[in-house]
């Protein structure tokens, strides 16, 4: 690591860095806090706890969690398959993992909406009169059970399972957006696994499943937690890929960023700032959490 001030340019580069950071990041971010404060803390509290806003928290933070967890499961499987198996198309799969990272969010948004809209592409397969959709119809036992579940009411439409313009659609969009995070965080850990440990478990009489659950998986947990947290952080703030497929029904399919925008349009700057402030704090907490998991992972693997 660099020694103190031997190389030239410290003042210049650090100065530019600090100025840039201050102007572009720090001052604007502090505007969040100050604008909130200038509107009064009472107004702030009222805004961030109003029923519509709280409902949006449930949508944004709740569905993001489910999506992140799903990515946790499939991400581990994908990482394992991509590292350990050889099959045609592996390189292609490996490369496409980063698509959600590279694709503009608006593009992803309209593609997913078109894909799952009721009369389109895949969406129409879920109409009650279609074979796949019939599972969800009230005539079918599964569909009948589903209709009794409060959380499912939102996406059981009149004519079929409603994916686009329902919470299910938001879930799909947020899963898309978080997909690379778990895969890319877990892949290097799997790559560094020492096979002799797995062989030792086998010689001791463990079946492959036992080896995986007792020996391999515990070693992957820190990385999995890190990846899930990263995916969660990304999903919570996501805007472009969600607003097309969401439907934006207040209390049902409205995400918090949408509320920020609508407050701005109403010129309620301090309200918008307050919400923005809440989202900033939430992002910060999630960031700290993921750093913590990452540190745990580094500690674990440092002693491999």
């Amino acid at each position, binding site marked *: 690591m660099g020694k103190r001030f031997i190389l030239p340019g410290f003042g210049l580069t650090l100065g530019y860095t600090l100025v840039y950071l201050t102007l572009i990041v720090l001052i604007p971010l502090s505007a969040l806090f100050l604008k909130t404060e200038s509107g009064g803390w009472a107004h702030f509290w009222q805004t961030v706890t109003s029923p519509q806003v709280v409902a949006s928290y449930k949508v944004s933070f709740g569905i993001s969690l489910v999506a992140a967890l799903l990515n946790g499961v499939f991400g581990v499987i994908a990482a394992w398959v991509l590292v350990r198996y050889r099959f045609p198309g592996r390189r292609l799969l490996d490369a496409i993992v980063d698509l959600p990272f590279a694709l503009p969010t608006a593009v992803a948004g309209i593609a997913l909406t078109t894909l799952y809209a009721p009369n389109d592409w895949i969406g129409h397969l879920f109409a009650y009169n279609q074979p796949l959709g019939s599972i969800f119809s009230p005539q079918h036992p599964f569909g009948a059970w589903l209709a009794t579940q409060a959380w499912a009411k939102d996406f059981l439409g009149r004519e079929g399972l409603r994916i686009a313009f329902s919470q299910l659609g938001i879930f799909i969009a947020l899963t898309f957006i978080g997909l690379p995070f778990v895969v890319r965080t877990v892949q290097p850990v799997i790559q560094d696994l020492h096979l*002799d440990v797995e062989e030792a478990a086998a*010689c*001791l*009489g463990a*079946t492959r499943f036992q080896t995986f659950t007792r020996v391999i998986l515990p070693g992957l947990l820190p990385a999995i937690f890190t990846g899930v947290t990263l995916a969660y952080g990304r999903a919570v703030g996501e805007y472009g890929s969600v607003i097309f497929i969401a439907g934006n029904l207040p209390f049902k399919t409205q995400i918090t960023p949408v509320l920020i925008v609508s407050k701005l349009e109403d010129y309620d700057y301090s309200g918008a700032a307050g919400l923005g402030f809440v989202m900033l704090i939430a992002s910060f907490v999630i960031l700290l959490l993921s750093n913590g998991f990452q540190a745990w992972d580094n500690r674990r693997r440092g002693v491999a």
Partner: protein
Amino acid sequence: MSIEVRDITKKYARFPALDNVSLKVESGELIALLGPSGSGKTTLLRTIAGLDFPDSNAGRIIYDGTDVTELSAYKRHAGFVFQHYALFNHMSISENVAFGLRVMKRSKRPAESVIQERVRQLLEAVQLAGYEKRLPSQLSGGQRQRVAFARALAIEPQVLLLDEPFGALDAKVRKELRRWLREFQDRIKLTTIFVTHDQEEAFEVADRVVLIDKGRIQQIGTPDEVRKTPANRFVAEFLDLPAEATASIPA
């Protein structure tokens, strides 16, 4: 338990890792597989353990009369100790040692109290009594290898297979563990096969030595036999034998 290796061949791409290897190990024997790196000694050991498999129809592995060639490693019940310990880093020492017992089928699994007692006895036998709760990262290399031994012995295997077990340790610890292994094996008379490239180690510990090079067995014999009557040039050169010994090599 006796081990018989019959006509094992294993080819990687074009070169043979094992070329028609046959070997018989008597019950209770401690034999060393000795040879330079790349000679196939580790491959042979792993084939005996079930971690590698011979090319199809190219040989058999027989444990005490039973053909185990088609059995995967987890069914063979052979204790294996690795050069780099291969301990389960997220588990405590006692959990490591108990692992083999805990993954047994319910019907065969001993009671928890029995497991704990066995762990305690084994740790005592390897001179690590009281270390139950520690983590592998808190132990030295020599200690970790002793845990590995205890772990392998916990399942009461019929054969012990050691892959350069002291290779990662420094000289003093190596000597101590070597001595300990010899005494231990003398006591319990467990069939043991260990791989090494260090001839001093092989000669000090083994009842018989198997010299391997280029996938072929070059000579099998007691340390004395091999030193006095080397079978070919390789043996003489590898063991750095003085000129008189080489005189007995057939042309």
